[in-house]
């Protein structure tokens, strides 16, 4: 029983270590998918009948939704409040 446990432990650590080594293989970082840089979108001269503009909106809306789902812990409501406070302060000045 004791040897079995030892073997199991050794196996588990070997496996985990080799997996970790795999994950850090440099070739996996070569062409990492980049997210759309939606903040760079130029809304000023955007023609919403243009397929290019529609496609960009689609992509960025989808990405924004995915981001929201991916970070449920982020308190967006609080952020807005903070912004409002700032604006208020500026008025008071």
């Amino acid at each position: 029983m004791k040897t079995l446990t030892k073997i199991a432990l050794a196996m588990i650590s070997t496996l985990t270590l080799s997996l970790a080594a795999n994950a850090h293989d440099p070739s996996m970082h070569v062409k990492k998918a980049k997210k759309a840089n939606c903040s760079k979108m130029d809304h000023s001269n955007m023609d919403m009948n243009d397929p290019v503009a529609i496609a960009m909106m689609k992509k960025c809306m989808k990405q924004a939704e995915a981001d929201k789902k991916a970070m449920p812990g982020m308190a967006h409501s609080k952020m807005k409040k903070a912004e409002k406070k700032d604006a208020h302060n500026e008025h008071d000045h």
Partner: protein
Amino acid sequence: MKIVKLILLLAVLGIGGGATVMYSGIINVAADEPHSDLVYWLLAETRENSIKIAAQNIEVPDLSDPELLLTGGADYEFMCATCHLKPGQSESDMSLGLYPAPPNLAVSNDNHKDHEHGDAKQAAGQSFWVIKHGIKASGMPAWGKTHDDQRIWAMVAFIKRLPKLTPEQYQILTAID
């Protein structure tokens, strides 16, 4: 009878000459050594006409769906941009090293004058044919072996708009979500 003999003689001479050229190794196949103007012209004309004829009966579908730009864009960035470049990039190892050189698809077609593509529909059909079947003895692969027509049309829709895209628009359209 005399004419037949003459033709036979010419044929033998032709084959002999061809074989001599072939087996002597006199032709330089190095990609960093350009063709002579004459050979280049012969090959370019042959290619252009071949594509024109092969593509003339292709039925071009409606390419205005914005969704096509998203699938086509992601595919282009992943499979084509290394050779055919993208907005804001003017050269790559492939664009400099390949001969015949891959045309820069991110600049307007009227910039290279040896392509007289006629109207837009015809150009789209020809792009489709080239992407699907590739071009022999050049770096251009036949993507039809691994991609269905729908995906190829999406790339056609994308490269149609590509010359007018800014680097920022290109990044957004081609990013993988």
